């Protein structure tokens, strides 16, 4: 499991993450929600050691992340930041192969090749595997990066706005893939997400942040109610139940 | 109110500057000055002080315009290849019309500077990665490119040492009759004052300015014209003074904010004051010799710029 204790991060005088303590359950999808600047991405970044927190500690599998060897931690936990543009001439397969770096340090073994193939197939990219990234559409590129994370085969996967820049069809595709990962491979997925309905439809738990503080953390059913959502976003919500899922209408 | 303080400081420093020199002239005896003393005053001292003030104003305003037009606080004649372009222009004059008057130097320097500024803006515009730090890095490299062209030709004509030393701004050679080109800075400052806001809008980009009904190209070119003319005039008469156009606008913006109409006079006057102080220091430090002002300003300016850079964040 992922456990953070009193995590704080400040830039200059501005406190971005304020004393966050949270225990994220294993094998589930947890969505981090909140308005712009609430500190979601920063929190995610500190868990993934991309950003150094000013205070607090982060425990993964009962062990502080600072006690991990970089290479070993990269076999436990992976992060994908918002759509990143690469200027490199890389094929999909080459990119996905990088996911195996923590295991093989660049010299791919049989197992690695198998995992790479699997990951590419998992994201439906087999036909494109020899195409250069720059030839792909935004959605395909995003899937290629996700395939790299899948190939990395870590128990914990952190995603920062994985649906950014994707149209509805691709968004649904990605979310289904993630659900699949969590159910079939027992992966723990934590993601920052802006679309409340995607969060509600696909995640098991929701953590809400506001002004750097964690203000709610509960199962999805308990978070998606008008009172709590209003507290998080300061606008009114109407909750519609359909197919045993909760849909939010906040458009009026 | 504060502008008054600055003006008083300017006047005081100008008077001080007038009375420093190898020949001792005292202001107290003004009514008993000999013809010779008057001559020194009008031929050498007064032109020098005036040139200092005009250069200080000119360069800081140019820096300000460039910063507005690129929307980047670290762009200035030093960090955009402008100084190097002026140098290349002077080299071209020396090669093509060796014994020419300074007006030819001005024309050549102006033409090349103008061209270089257009290219630089085009580059700055095409850089996707609009990091505030990256654009001056490219600008300094761009200056290096122009320098390599200059060196290429200077080496052919065996004038590397001369070319190398043009970079140093120096006021000791200023005499009545050889510095008047600098007055070109005056109308430019006035023009800048009226166009200040338009330059800012231009900096937001072509579409943005068209949306506000501005003629993007003509204002862009006007801005570049102002900068290139002043910098070339200064380069031809005095030489180049690094960092001045960078630090003065930055300090003023730190102190008084970014409302151009309001801060423009401060920037102009502070530029002149800073230059006067550096000149006085340079003249006193190894009296009766002097340290070229390009050196004093380059040193102080470079250090101030580093401080500005490091406190950013």
């Amino acid at each position, binding site marked *: 499991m992922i456990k953070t204790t009193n995590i704080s991060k400040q830039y200059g005088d501005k406190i971005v993450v304020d004393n966050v303590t949270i225990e994220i359950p294993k094998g589930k999808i947890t969505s981090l929600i909140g308005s712009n600047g609430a500190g979601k991405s920063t929190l995610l970044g500190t868990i993934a050691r991309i950003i150094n927190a000013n205070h607090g500690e982060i425990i993964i599998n009962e062990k502080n992340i600072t006690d991990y060897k*970089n290479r070993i931690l990269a*076999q436990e936990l992976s992060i*994908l930041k918002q759509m990143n543009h690469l200027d490199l*001439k890389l094929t999909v397969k080459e990119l996905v192969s990088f996911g195996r*770096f923590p295991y093989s340090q660049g010299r791919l073994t049989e197992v690695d090749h198998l995992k790479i193939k699997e990951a590419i197939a998992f994201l439906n990219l087999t036909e494109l595997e020899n195409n250069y990234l720059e030839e792909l559409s935004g959605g395909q590129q995003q899937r290629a990066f996700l395939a790299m994370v899948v190939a990395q085969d870590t128990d914990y996967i952190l995603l920062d706005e994985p649906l950014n820049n994707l149209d509805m069809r691709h968004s649904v595709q990605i979310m289904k893939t993630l659900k699949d990962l969590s159910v079939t491979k027992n992966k723990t997925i934590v993601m920052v997400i802006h679309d409340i309905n995607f969060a509600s439809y696909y995640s098991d738990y929701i953590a809400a942040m506001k002004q750097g503080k964690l203000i709610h953390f509960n199962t999805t059913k308990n978070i998606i109610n008008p009172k709590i959502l209003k507290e998080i976003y300061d606008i009114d919500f109407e909750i519609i139940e359909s197919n045993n899922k909760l849909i939010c209408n906040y458009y009026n | 109110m504060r502008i008054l303080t600055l003006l008083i400081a300017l006047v005081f420093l100008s008077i001080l500057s007038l009375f420093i020199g190898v020949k001792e002239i005292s202001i107290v005896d003004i009514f008993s000055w000999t013809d010779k003393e008057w001559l020194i005053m009008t031929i050498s001292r007064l032109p020098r002080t005036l040139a200092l003030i005009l250069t200080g104003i000119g360069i800081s305003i140019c820096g300000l315009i460039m910063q507005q037009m690129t929307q980047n606080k670290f762009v200035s004649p030093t960090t955009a290849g402008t100084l190097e372009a002026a140098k290349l222009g002077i080299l071209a004059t020396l090669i093509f019309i060796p014994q020419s008057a300074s007006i030819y130097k001005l024309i050549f320097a102006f033409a090349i500077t103008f061209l270089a500024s257009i290219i630089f803006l085009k580059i700055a515009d095409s850089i996707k990665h609009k990091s505030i*730090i990256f654009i001056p890095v490219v600008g*300094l490299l761009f200056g290096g490119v122009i320098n390599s062209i200059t060196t290429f030709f200077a080496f052919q004509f065996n004038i590397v040492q001369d070319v190398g030393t043009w*970079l140093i701004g120096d006021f000791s050679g200023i005499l009545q009759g050889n510095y008047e080109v600098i007055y070109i800075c005056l109308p430019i400052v006035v023009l800048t004052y009226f166009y200040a806001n338009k330059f800012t809008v231009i900096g937001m980009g072509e579409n943005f300015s068209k949306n506000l009904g501005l003629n993007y190209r003509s204002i862009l070119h006007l801005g570049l014209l102002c900068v290139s003319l002043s910098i070339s005039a200064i380069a031809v008469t005095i030489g180049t003074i690094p960092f001045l156009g960078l630090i003065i606008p930055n300090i003023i913006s730190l102190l008084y904010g970014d409302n151009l109409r309001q801060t423009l006079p401060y920037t102009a006057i502070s530029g002149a004051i800073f230059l006067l102080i550096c000149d006085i220091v340079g003249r006193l430090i190894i009296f009766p010799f002097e340290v070229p002002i390009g*050196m004093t300003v380059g040193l102080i300016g470079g250090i101030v710029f*580093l401080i500005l850079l490091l406190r950013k964040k």
Partner: protein
Amino acid sequence: MKIHIKKIILLVLVAIALCALFLSYDLPSNWGYSFERRSYKVLAIIIVSCSVGYASIVFQTLTHNRILTPSIMGFEAVYLLFQTIIVFLYGDKTFTVINDKENFFLSIIFMLGFAFILFKFIFKKEKNNLYLLLLIGLVLGTLFHTITSFLQLIIDPNDFLILQGSIYASFNKINYHLLWYALTVIIICFAVGFRQFKYLDVISLGKEHAINLGINYFKKVRFYLFIIGALVAVSTALVGPIIFLGILVTNLTYEIFKSYKHAILIPACCLICIISIVGAQFLVEHVFSFNIVISIIINFIGGLYFMYLLLKTKKV
């Protein structure tokens, strides 16, 4: 992968052919002495090429930017200032006061000292903002240049000729005893760096991906910055500054090898660099007949190419 190997082999052949041409072209009948001199020259070119090629590729990977060269960090300004100060102090007695070997090592020490202070300072304060590092290097460089120009202004023109000899890169007046020291440094840099080229492949994906894939990013960046420092210092002290060479050869390399693997890119870039310099030197000696110094040609062409790169693409 195979195609890359083929291309490398081709480059090796071209480089060997050019070197052979350079060594044998128009040899006088009493060829022993000329041949020896030329061999040293070729060795010098190989050393400089390897250091420039290696340093430039690594530097561009660390900065994720293909239009930069390590020369801009201010090393060369330190070198120029040091040379100018020596000539300023000792004038025409320069050579009796300080010999080539002392000059070589002192230059390297000063450049490395500068790099060390720069890196220490930045990493302490900024946690690795490479562009800031560059800009500060550049500004310090401009500062040193100001002092250098001032000193050059007051140097006696005859002494300036001595200076001109050391501040424009040239393969004609290298002290050949220094080559072996330089070669040692380069070999060490390759030996310690080679096993780590794979990390560079990962770093080229970007800082966040690199950390995600378990790279100790900051440590590796620092390690390679020091390697770059050593390489640039050695090649500058040996032949003087060649600023734009790095940009020229790296971009040619990327054009020819569409690869991200540093184990291929770096050797390829060194080879391309050897081919360019030997070619340029051949032109200098036999076409322009010594009228111009090689670094000036390279900077001129490299500079123009740099402008072309800047204006050509919208992705920098």
